[in-house]
């Protein structure tokens, strides 16, 4: 059993020899589609961590909750799970608003430094994530859920791709663009960015920092849950699977740089492309390891992330 199957390496390399422009294009498209998925996972956390400055470890559970919402809607109505966005998003917004007001504000008030707040919020939201898992296990059971909606091929450059992934990529692009425009072109968005950049000065220009942070946190939660709805169309999930998403989102947010939504988008796509390239060109077994190595390299070369601000 210890002996290695002879001939395996040679066979594998033959696949690589046949690489062509077409298959390189393939990597790019698969990578982009995956990047769209990652952007959906990470965008909400960016708002919560970048603006509201709360490292929310229960973020993945909110995503799973959104996915369950879509699943149950689909099961009950047989209509497109995308319609469930209409109630999942407002619910998630309200829930996260409440979490911020009830659980986070006391931490913000009592902590004397950003570092202490970070530690407190990591632990509190970790506890919260357990709480959510407990509730979801009780409500939905612990089994795997998978309903493969729109699991049919679409053709791009003659290659087949999952329609659900393409749809969610489209939604992700729209969401990213909308968030970017909102943050950069509206007064409310500017106010959120101001809080992100310098919360203590935001009060000086009549921004209610607590409210603005609550808004960002709630918005982040809503975006995350929306991501959950979209991802549920093609990912298998269960009540305690959220931590996988949280970890991925954390890596993307930090890779891109805290407080800059462009960074998150770029990092999501870089990661998607890198993972796909590694999976296709080197070995699928190393995809997740590659993600961490990439993360480590960026930290070494540019600790503040691709788009991040240098901390003084």
């Amino acid at each position, binding site marked *: 059993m210890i002996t290695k199957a002879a001939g395996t390496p040679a066979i594998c390399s033959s696949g690589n020899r046949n690489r062509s422009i077409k298959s390189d294009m393939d990597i790019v498209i698969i990578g982009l589609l995956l990047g769209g998925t990652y952007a959906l996972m990470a965008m909400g956390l960016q708002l919560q961590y970048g603006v509201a400055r709360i490292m929310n470890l229960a973020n993945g559970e909110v995503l799973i909750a959104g996915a369950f919402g879509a699943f149950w809607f689909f099961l009950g109505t047989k209509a497109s799970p995308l319609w469930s966005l209409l109630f999942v998003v407002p619910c998630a917004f309200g829930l996260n608003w409440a979490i911020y007001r009830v659980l986070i504000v006391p931490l913000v008030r009592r902590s004397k430094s950003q570092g202490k707040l970070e530690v407190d919020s990591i632990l509190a939201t970790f506890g919260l994530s357990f709480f959510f898992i407990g509730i979801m296990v009780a409500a939905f059971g612990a089994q795997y859920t998978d309903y493969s909606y729109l699991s049919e091929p679409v053709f791009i450059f003659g290659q087949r791709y999952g329609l659900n992934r393409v749809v969610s990529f489209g939604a992700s692009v729209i969401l990213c663009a909308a968030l970017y425009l909102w943050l950069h072109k509206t007064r409310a968005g500017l106010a959120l960015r101001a809080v992100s950049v310098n919360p203590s000065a935001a009060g000086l220009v009549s921004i209610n*920092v607590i409210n603005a942070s609550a808004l960002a946190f709630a918005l982040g939660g809503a975006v995350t849950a929306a991501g959950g709805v979209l991802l549920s169309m093609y990912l298998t999930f269960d009540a305690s699977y959220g931590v996988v998403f949280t970890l991925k989102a954390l890596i993307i947010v930090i890779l891109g740089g805290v407080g800059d939504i462009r960074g998150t988008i770029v990092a999501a796509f870089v990661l998607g492309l890198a993972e796909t390239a590694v999976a296709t060109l080197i070995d699928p077994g190393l995809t997740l390891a590659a993600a961490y190595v990439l993360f480590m390299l960026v930290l070494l070369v540019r600790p503040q992330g691709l788009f991040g601000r240098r901390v003084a």
Partner: protein
Amino acid sequence: MLESRNVSVFYGRHRALENVSASISKGEIVVMLGANGAGKSTFLRAIAGQTQKADGGTVLMDGNDITRRPPHEIVETGVALVPEDRGIFADLTVQENLFLGAHPARARALEAQNMQRVLELFPRLKERPKQLVRTMSGGERQMVAIGRAMMSAPSILLLDEPSLGLAPVLCTELFRTLRRIKESGVGIFLVEQNAKQSLAIADRGYLLDNGHIVGADSAAALAKDEKVKAAYLGE
């Protein structure tokens, strides 16, 4: 008119301010002098509702009690603070900083008008609206900070050591600008180390020592006062 009556602030058991009463009206410059750690910054922060709330006394703006209001509400009453660290948004552009200044509801209607006024005061800001404030020099940042405060259409401007870290040549320019702002009808409450130049443009002044007001008089009289000369003018 902005008025503090018997304002006290404690840090734990340490008394930073005790029974400080001071006032300022529109169109005048009032300077508060005091050594390091006398409590000058604490006083401004207490008035503006920043972190340290007043533990005793009242703060009135045009007769309304604003003592325990949060900072974002105090701005709406027409009191704008430029703290010692400037309170600007270093990672946003000049233009965005100024727009943010006009975030208070009271200032939104006047945004265009105020913008014009600020750019007239600081022509240098007009040249580079898209520059990130982080990349600017100390003097330019101070302009952004004061400009940002002016955008909120304040009646009273609170400035915490605006000359700190500025070279003498920039200091002179700054005080000239402050005089012009005053002439436009805004009251300026100035906390300063630079006694000589601030007394030169001020109408009145207070002396703060160890959390207490130990003197109050017209600027001209203070400038001649022997005690002031010894303690703050180094003569």
